[in-house]
């Protein structure tokens, strides 16, 4: 019996991007089926269609071999489909049980009050049945990510899900939490649950799946039994060529100290102290990697360093000058470049042209403008050069950035920040959500920029990226630096994982070495 059949699915987004172009996808009841593909291959879109968040432009869907029309998540849940999103959708101030029963609360006194005891009972019952224990009465806010994910899974199960979609569930987990998740998933499959597992981490896929479907450029490349393919074969199917997994990183030749952060602390608007006395130094010609599970203070650190967040205490010395509290306007003029975490929200104006996006930090100076007037010819000339240098796929520098694919959009951002002549480059998740070709390109460029004498602060949730690029590494956990590695030889993702999770930590004296004092 087939749980899911998606036949010849086509999806065109309103910005003209074709995310799915004739995808066929079939899942048997009771199997763990992985959907793999590079970022931008169309995995998430396909699953959004299955869960009713997006409507397909063309194609047919059958659930348990009956043709269906899924026009909303509500429909999907009714059909027994549950989805655990990459970003959790939980109310942090409510308890675990309240979150799980939200929208289907058991009531007492003729429906006027919520029966909390009943809710807890319901949750415990389901949790026990599927072997996913949770602290039902605790508030969600401070729970670890692994537990939050378990809550999301329970939310789907309690609503009668028979098909469970997990969208890159391991992206936010440490290696240790991932192991636990896998045990739970195998358990669920044994009980007859159908699981669709989305990932681009091949070792995980190999470990957990019964079958694998590979997507590339919005098309199905094939479905395979896991024992019939090797990781290398899958990656070739995903990428269409042999991936160069190793990026050549010659030893760094660090120069003078460019950035010196001392005792940086910050309270967020909600009163949470998200940075606790962070100190480190960064020299020209080296890359300092900042590893950590998302939400451990990295975002705030980056925003403070680039003049987008204010109110921190401590000291930031850039090229020998105190710059704490300066705005982006000042810092840009003091040679700070910034690849932001979110290219659509911050990194680019999607409704402006490529050329307009490329000059946003230098439009006011020569050769792009005089005292008052812009020189459009020079702007276009520069844009054409940048498009060529960074192989941005477009037919004109006047194309709106919103029309480009994610990878090309990121190349526009990167092209601007890499050509700004900066002393300090803060690269925050520089390859998130872009295809493998662009990723490789951006990573190589980061090394190039380093070798030209720029000090690079690399913040990334992608441990592979951190290990590939960094000369030195700090690990952040709950707003503190808990680990410092002054060289990166022999380090593994697992090693970093222990520090990211707060299981291990270096003693304060070793952490102080990050400041190179």
């Amino acid at each position, binding site marked *: 019996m087939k749980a899911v059949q998606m036949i010849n699915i086509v999806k065109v987004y309103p910005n003209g991007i074709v995310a799915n172009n004739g995808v066929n996808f079939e899942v048997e009841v009771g199997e763990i089926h992985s959907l793999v593909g590079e970022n931008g291959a169309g995995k998430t879109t396909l699953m959004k269609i299955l869960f009713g968040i997006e409507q397909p432009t063309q194609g047919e869907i059958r659930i348990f071999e009956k043709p269906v029309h899924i026009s909303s998540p509500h429909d999907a849940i009714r059909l027994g489909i549950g989805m655990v999103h990459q970003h959790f959708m939980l109310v942090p101030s409510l308890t675990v049980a309240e979150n799980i029963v939200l929208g289907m609360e058991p009531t007492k006194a003729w429906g006027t009050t919520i029966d909390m005891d009943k809710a807890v009972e319901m949750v415990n019952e389901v949790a026990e049945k599927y072997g996913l224990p949770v602290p039902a009465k605790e508030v969600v806010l401070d729970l670890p990510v692994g537990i939050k994910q378990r809550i999301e899974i329970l939310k789907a199960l309690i609503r009668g899900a028979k098909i469970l979609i997990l969208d890159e569930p391991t992206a936010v987990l440490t290696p240790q939490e991932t192991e636990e998740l896998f045990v739970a998933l195998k358990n669920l499959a044994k009980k007859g649950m159908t699981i669709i597992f989305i990932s681009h981490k091949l070792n995980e896929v190999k470990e957990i799946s019964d079958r694998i479907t590979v997507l590339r450029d919005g098309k199905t490349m094939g479905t395979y039994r896991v024992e019939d393919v090797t990781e290398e074969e899958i990656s070739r199917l995903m990428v269409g060529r042999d991936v160069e997994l190793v990026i050549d990183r010659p030893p760094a030749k660090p120069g003078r100290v460019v950035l010196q952060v001392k005792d940086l602390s910050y309270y967020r608007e909600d009163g949470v102290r998200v940075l606790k006395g962070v100190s480190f130094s960064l020299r020209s010609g080296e890359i300092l990697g900042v590893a950590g599970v998302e939400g451990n203070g990295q975002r705030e650190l980056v925003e403070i360093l680039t003049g987008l967040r204010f109110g921190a205490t401590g000291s930031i010395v850039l090229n020998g000058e105190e710059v704490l509290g300066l705005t*982006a*306007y000042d810092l840009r003029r003091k040679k700070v470049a910034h690849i932001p975490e979110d290219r659509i929200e911050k990194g680019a104006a999607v409704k402006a042209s490529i050329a307009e996006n490329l000059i946003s*930090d230098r439009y006011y100076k020569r050769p792009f403008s005089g005292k008052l007037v*812009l020189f459009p010819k020079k702007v276009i000339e520069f844009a054409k050069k940048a498009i060529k240098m960074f192989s941005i796929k477009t037919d004109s520098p006047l194309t*709106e950035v919103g029309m480009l694919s994610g990878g090309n959009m990121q190349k526009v951002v990167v092209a601007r920040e890499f050509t700004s002549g900066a002393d300090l480059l803060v690269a925050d998740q520089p390859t998130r959500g872009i295809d493998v070709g662009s990723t490789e390109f951006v990573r190589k460029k980061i090394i190039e920029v380093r070798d030209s004498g720029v000090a690079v602060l690399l913040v990334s949730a992608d441990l592979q990226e951190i290990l590939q690029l960094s000369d030195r590494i700090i690990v952040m956990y709950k707003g503190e630096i808990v680990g410092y590695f002054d060289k990166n030889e022999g380090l593994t993702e697992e090693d970093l994982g222990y520090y990211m999770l707060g299981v291990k930590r270096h003693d304060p004296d070793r952490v102080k070495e990050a400041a190179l004092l």
Partner: protein
Amino acid sequence: MRRDRIIFETVRTTLTILIALLIGYVILLFATDKANEAFKWFLLGPLSTKRRIVELLNRTTPLIFTGLAVSVVFQAEIFNIGAEGQLFFGAVAATFAALYFPHIKFLQIILVMLFAMAAGGAWAAVPAYMKAKWNASELVSSLMMNYVAFFFGLYLVNYHMRDVNAGALVSYRFPRTAWLPRMLRRYNLHPGILIAIGFALLVWFFLYRTKYGYELRMVGKNKEFARFSGIKVENVVIYSQIISGMIAGLAGAIELMGLYKRFVWQMTPGYGFDGIIVALLARNNPLMVIPAALFISYLRTGSYVMGRMTGIAPEIVVMLQAIMILLITAEAFLAFWKRRMIEKSAMSREE
């Protein structure tokens, strides 16, 4: 893609206008049994005599100015809808300058214009500053400022500049040195239209060819991006509104110096609000403001001609404008067609 969008917007605007006209015709059918005759006057009236053509052009002038004023702030995604008050206050300032500044040929016209611009700019600066400093909604504060401009302006005119010998509540007559010259001997066609067209070119140049215009547009396209890039967003928020206010203020001065030669308004003339629909029709493009203003002026003039010839209330045109605003701002209108166009072009690129 860019060409597709232009085609799409053109078709959408044309269709919007046709639908509005059709509804107008249906309303006329209810209002009179001579609907065809009335509609003919409405459609062709503005071109029927030389006098009416002059009327059409003179009425276009303030609409170009206010359309430009609104376009500037809208391009920065700032919803300052205070053009009405800025124009009114600019007109009051122009009256003061016309009556009390030295009566020197040419020079006084320039001074009156500059003074009105300063007044309009100052008026717009209030919501602008409140927005930049305290993040006060410019939509609300600029709208409130319209009322303040109106009553404060009326107080100034009626209590300090009123001509008691005139048969109505109007100011003293301007000296001849504050009259815009006539361009035709028999008709009062004043050069305001030329100044307005000149300003449209100037605003275009400002927005698309200067640093400050670039900043303004980037703030409009993505404020966070602008701030991240090192643009001082607060400055843009302030100067875009001041520039807009100056253009609106100038409209007030030109209207009085060109047409009435004295302050005549006891009600707000409505040009500021008409400027919003002009900007909407023109998609905030300064060059497109000229035809858009001409079109709205044509509708207005048509409705007045119709009113004079058939006795039907010219206010019908307000309904047509409302319908057009609704259809143009309704993003979903014809969206299915746009989506099909995008899908087709995307799929053909895939092949």
